């Protein structure tokens, strides 16, 4: 079977990925597998393998430059290398401190998913306000298109007030 990426060499790495119920199959040659692994981290990590999570932290390999690995979390002082060894973050702030480094791992675990569920009350209020602003902006656009400038001015003021909050 030919590699599904370069369509030239013989495929030697076969990989099946299931994210959010969506199954994707890969058949890659050695060269393509190495390139994809460099981009996304190891193929062979098990997302639900308990203590295997350490191997999930893509980006930390023996080849990783020492300088990058020694960046520390602003709250708990953990390095990304320590996170990778434990398979778990050191504190909630690690997600901000190592946002870039954690991104491949989180992508593999959850897909490119963005949180859509509940939120603490103060975030929920902000989320509701943003949804209102988006709706008002739509109405504003329509009002301008139909040359209802008085209505447009009212909508603009409402948007401004919501943004100020």
């Amino acid at each position, binding site marked *: 079977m030919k590699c599904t990426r370069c369509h030239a060499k013989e495929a030697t790495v076969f990989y099946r990925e299931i994210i959010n119920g969506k199954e994707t199959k890969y058949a890659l040659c050695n060269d393509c597998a190495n390139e994809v692994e460099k981009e996304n981290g190891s193929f062979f990590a098990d997302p639900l393998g*308990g203590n295997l999570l350490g191997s999930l932290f893509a980006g930390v390999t023996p080849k990783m430059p020492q300088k990058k690995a020694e960046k520390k979390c602003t709250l708990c002082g953990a390095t990304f290398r320590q996170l990778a060894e434990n398979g778990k973050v050191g504190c*909630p702030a690690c997600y901000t401190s190592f946002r870039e480094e954690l991104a491949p791992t989180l992508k593999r675990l959850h897909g490119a*998913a963005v*949180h859509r*569920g509940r*939120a*603490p009350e103060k975030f929920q209020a902000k989320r509701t306000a943003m949804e209102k602003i988006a709706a008002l902006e739509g109405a504003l656009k329509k009002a301008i298109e139909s040359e209802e400038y008085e209505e447009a001015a009212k909508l603009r003021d409402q948007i401004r007030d919501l943004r100020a909050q």
Partner: protein
Amino acid sequence: MYWYETEGTDRDVFVSTRVRLARNLVDYPFDPRLDETGAKEIIEKIRTVFATEQGYTFTDFTGVTENEKLSLVEKHLVSPEFARKKTPCAMIENNEQQVYIMVCEEDHLRIQGIRSGFDPRGAMDAALKADAAIDAKLHIAFDEELGYLTHCPTNLGTGLRISVMMFLPALTATGRIKSIQGQLSKIGLTVRGTTGEGSAAKGCLYQFSNSVTQGVTEEEILNNLQQAVGTIAQAERETRQQLLENNADLLKDRVMRALGTMGSAYMMDTEELYRLYADVRMGVAMGICDTVTYTQLDTLLIHCMPATLTARAGESLSASQRDKLRAEHLRTSIQKLC
């Protein structure tokens, strides 16, 4: 009353439903970076929140004996990891015994709602009520893109795990459970044994739970799980019917022998109890036996677990003493019912 002592929906297949929300406080690291002072501060903050909420009881785990902790694990109210903790931790429970909050477990807070039978919505509502009380007074770690921030990245997002304990003797006996297990990952579900991760399915009891926590809403997780376990429940009921049609006499014999052994044995270990429990419970579900109810059977099983049995005895017991006491408890309970 504990969850297992109450009536519930679809008890022929569903034993219990548990909802768990993982939550953390900003400004505090996770175990093992969380020192004793930090853990005590978190515990005090949570204690203060629930001191002003009606109907909750706070328990400092420092004063709880090892056996009492293990008994809580046997009742599926706290995790085995939580019971093993040597650093400061605490538990909050509500008066209805439907909400259990583990403080300083893997996450700072594991808010659990637990109900008898199949009731994910009831369990969720109970957990969310406690969650709202905490959210109103404390600053919970949250990121607009990532959702609730958790110790383990697998729980990110909603931090929600819905676990349904199912009783599947017919699918186990026919081996069909293996093909079901093989298909679960495709629909975002995982299955574990009776007591959680890595444990075996004793008593034909399986825990099904969602594996995806991010990029989906709580409602979507609930609906997906409800649909999946509904299909499994239907397969179990159909298989039971087929077994009954083809092997009625053999099944009746097996069920009544199991009940007879429960009501007359003088020594019994937990392995044998699990086997007998599964046979009798299947007999109740198939209409072969009406001597006991699901509630009575599930209560008996938990009361006969090692730590819970020891707690009832009020003294430490050797394995053979436990086997004797277990048989005695079963004998008197079953004989009362017959």
